[in-house]
């Protein structure tokens, strides 16, 4: 039998055993382990242990001696491809920062290390230091140094939070804001609306409460605005001749245009609605992000060299094919502005208005016909926004119906609290069944009470209807806010652009290019409905992809 090349992932007893077996059979074996060290005994979980076999220890010594085996520890797979019967992997071995040839296992380093962290090798029992040998059997010393602090790693845009928070502590607000703008142009807006996953991850939270990162970001941006400091515009002296079309002037598109301009590429941004901003402008209520604040930020971004054309809907005012022909690259960031239907009877009646449409009308200053009682369906942040806007608009009573309990609610807890404070009534374990009305105008909503059943695949308990619990709530307005999806009607029929079953574009995650060369996409239209900072992060990465694409084409 000819010699085979075998890669084994996982240095636990099973992986080590398999490596030895393969090597004995004459194969060339590479063993890749993600932890800094191999081995560690385990208790079997596929058979009841007999007398003297309690722990299964991998035979690490035999493994190290075997000429056919190469071991790569502390490694992560970066890239994979398969074809012609060959698997290719790019594997990065993180530097242990300790030279095993020189280390004499004296433990002096462990004694002086000031960092005491939960011992991850021992499932968090006890503590270890940042320099350690991880597995006492192998004594492979290494320094545990992360690429980024946890807040930065959690932030979709990977903002250097530690630096900009530190600069605020030093009182250097301009440097702090500049640090933020290295990766994000929307400090004013994101500082107001972000649900800040970084704060959820913040290590200080395990001690008392997390750092208020989001409000700190807002503080430095506000400082510039309130003190009338001119925001710096840093662009190259000369722009390149290529031009990029950006479809959609939302968080993703404008971020993309900003980073393109900084790299010396002009772009034209097409926006279907009368004003730029996308969901910042038409989705987030005024009381969370005032339009003048947003416009200050957008005008600053545009001043870098992004041309804006509003009231221009692709597929109606300009043909999609013409854009493809006229521009060197195209960025699609049209967002997800189409509300999902409840799929119940009577949904087309007058008085039923989708959450996204309702918020857009409110943000456009339209008459919301705020009379009587309004019911909002859903438990996300859009539902909270719609409810709080309704309350402000003057509805007599505002009710939110949600089919599970408060615990399962996806909205941010502080948004739920604020809504309740404002007197909005949230009813849990209720689902709509039918819109009731007269002459095509709704007068009420038939509902069903629910109870929580068994957990489903997501781990959340599934709501189950209670038989015979139907009841009718009188209401003049119903706002379903149960999710959005992108409206891709601008893509002409027969276009090669591939669309996923969630009605989104799929892109290469490193370049953000779609399957059509030169066409890029990010934001909600690529990820599905998500938070603004993820759209901004995507816009920045897509800008890098576009720049690389244009550079490669020039050669």
């Amino acid at each position, binding site marked *: 039998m000819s010699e085979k090349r075998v890669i*084994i992932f*996982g240095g*636990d*007893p*099973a*992986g080590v*055993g*398999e490596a030895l077996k393969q090597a004995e059979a004459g194969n060339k074996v*590479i063993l890749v382990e993600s932890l800094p060290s191999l081995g560690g005994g*385990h*208790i079997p*979980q*596929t058979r*009841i242990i007999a007398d003297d076999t309690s722990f299964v220890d991998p035979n690490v010594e035999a493994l190290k001696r075997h000429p056919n085996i190469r071991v790569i520890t502390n490694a992560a*797979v970066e890239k*994979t491809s398969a074809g012609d019967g060959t*698997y290719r*992997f*790019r*594997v990065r071995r993180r*530097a242990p920062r*300790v*030279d*095993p*040839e020189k280390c004499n296992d004296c433990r002096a380093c*462990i*004694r002086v*290390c*000031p*960092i005491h*962290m939960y011992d991850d*090798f021992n499932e968090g*029992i006890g503590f270890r230091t*940042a320099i350690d040998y991880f*597995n006492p059997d192998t004594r492979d*010393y290494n*320094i*545990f*140094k992360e690429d980024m*602090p946890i807040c930065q790693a959690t932030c979709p845009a990977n903002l250097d939070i*530690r630096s900009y928070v530190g600069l605020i*502590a030093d009182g250097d607000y301009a440097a702090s804001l500049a640090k933020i703008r290295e990766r994000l142009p929307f400090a004013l807006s994101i500082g*107001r609306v972000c649900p800040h996953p970084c704060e959820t991850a913040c290590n*200080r939270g395990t001690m008392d*409460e997390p*750092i*208020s990162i989001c*409000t*700190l970001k807002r*503080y430095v941006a506000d400082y510039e605005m309130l003190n009338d400091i001119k925001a710096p515009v840093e662009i190259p002296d000369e722009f390149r001749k290529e031009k990029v079309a950006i479809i959609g002037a939302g968080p993703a598109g404008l971020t993309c245009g900003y980073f393109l301009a900084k790299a010396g590429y002009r772009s034209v941004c097409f926006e279907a609605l009368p004003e730029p901003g996308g969901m910042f402008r038409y989705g987030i*209520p005024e*009381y*969370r992000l005032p339009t003048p604040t947003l416009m200050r930020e957008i005008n600053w971004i545009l001043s870098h060299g992004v041309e804006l054309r509003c009231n221009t809907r692709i597929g109606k005012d300009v043909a999609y094919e013409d854009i493809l022909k006229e521009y060197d690259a195209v960025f699609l960031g049209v967002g997800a502005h189409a509300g999902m239907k409840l799929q119940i009877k009577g949904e087309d009646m007058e008085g039923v208005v989708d959450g996204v449409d309702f918020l857009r009308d409110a943000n456009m200053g339209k008459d919301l016909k705020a009379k009587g009682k309004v019911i909002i369906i859903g438990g996300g942040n859009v539902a909270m926004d719609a409810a709080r806007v309704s*309350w*402000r608009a*003057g509805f007599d009573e505002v009710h939110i119906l949600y089919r599970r309990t408060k615990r399962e609610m996806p909205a941010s807890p502080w948004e739920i609290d604020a809504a309740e404070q*404002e007197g909005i009534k949230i009813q849990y374990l209720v689902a709509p069944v039918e819109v009731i009305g007269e002459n095509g105008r709704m007068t009420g909503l038939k509902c069903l009470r629910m109870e929580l059943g*068994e*957990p489903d695949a997501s*781990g959340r308990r599934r709501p189950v209807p209670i038989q015979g619990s139907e009841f009718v709530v009188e209401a003049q307005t119903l706002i379903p806010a149960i999710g959005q999806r992108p409206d891709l009607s601008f893509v002409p029929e027969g276009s090669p652009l591939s669309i996923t079953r969630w009605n989104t574009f799929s892109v290469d995650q490193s370049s953000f290019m779609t399957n059509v060369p030169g066409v890029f996409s990010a934001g909600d239209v690529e990820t599905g409905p998500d938070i603004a900072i993820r759209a901004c992060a995507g816009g920045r990465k897509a800008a890098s992809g576009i720049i690389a694409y244009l550079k490669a084409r020039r050669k």
Partner: protein
Amino acid sequence: MLYEKKGRYIVEFQDIPKARQHHIEIDVDERRMNNKEVELGFDEERAIKEAKRCLSCRRCLGCALCWAECKPEAIVFDMQDEVFDLEADSVIVSPGVERAVDRVDRKYGLGRELNVITDLQLERMLSDSGPSAGLIIRPLDGDIPSRIAFVQSYASSTAPRMHKAAVIFGVNEAILVKRKLPLAQVTFFAEGLDAVLKEAGATQQSLNGAKVVESPVKGVEGNADGSIQVAFGAGDETAAFDLVVLLTQPQVPRELKDLGKSLGLTLSYASFLVGDGAGVITTEKEAVALAGEV
């Protein structure tokens, strides 16, 4: 070689404010019938106080104390990562164990009661090279427990069952605990345990005298003395234990899922443990196999 610490200084700990600063916001009364911005952010004093709370985490701080202390000069801070491009005709994946602790219901007290631990934590305790050098101890005070309960964190007569592997893992731990602490009272709460044992070619005799209670656990409460009150059975039965070990559900590690996805494979932990997990299981792509347990 010198490691410079540019602009680094040590802040006195008393200077670090304790409480999180809260943003300023307008009253609820001021919000009706208008669109005034509700949250007003921080003033300068709050901003600086809040920014000073940041712990600047990154596990190793680069303080270079270890470097200064290391006589053989084995510590190299600027050691670079290595990147390998590897090729193979065949790929074998040994999934290891990952357990979804965050999915454990709060009623089992994990994270709330110190003396409630997971099966993996007990495994580390039982290991001679573990944090307690093989001693079984109560995390609260380091005492040797005399009443130990094994509880299925998913168990109920209707909810999804624990994976067979989780149950066997727990049984093995109970056997080892009994071996180390022969006088300890070990109780194993499980429904349908006999069937699992039978499949593994064993009986309740194998449990070394651990008591089996055929009932799911309804919840646990901490007592004032640090012991844990376990509620079970059809009525209002309870019993006190010094240490409660939760059996957790095994699942495919995330990085492995990603790997499987990039190779076009669907990996499930169940498929790994099919056929008692012995030997190598080939998945739908011939060249890729899953390694079983030895």
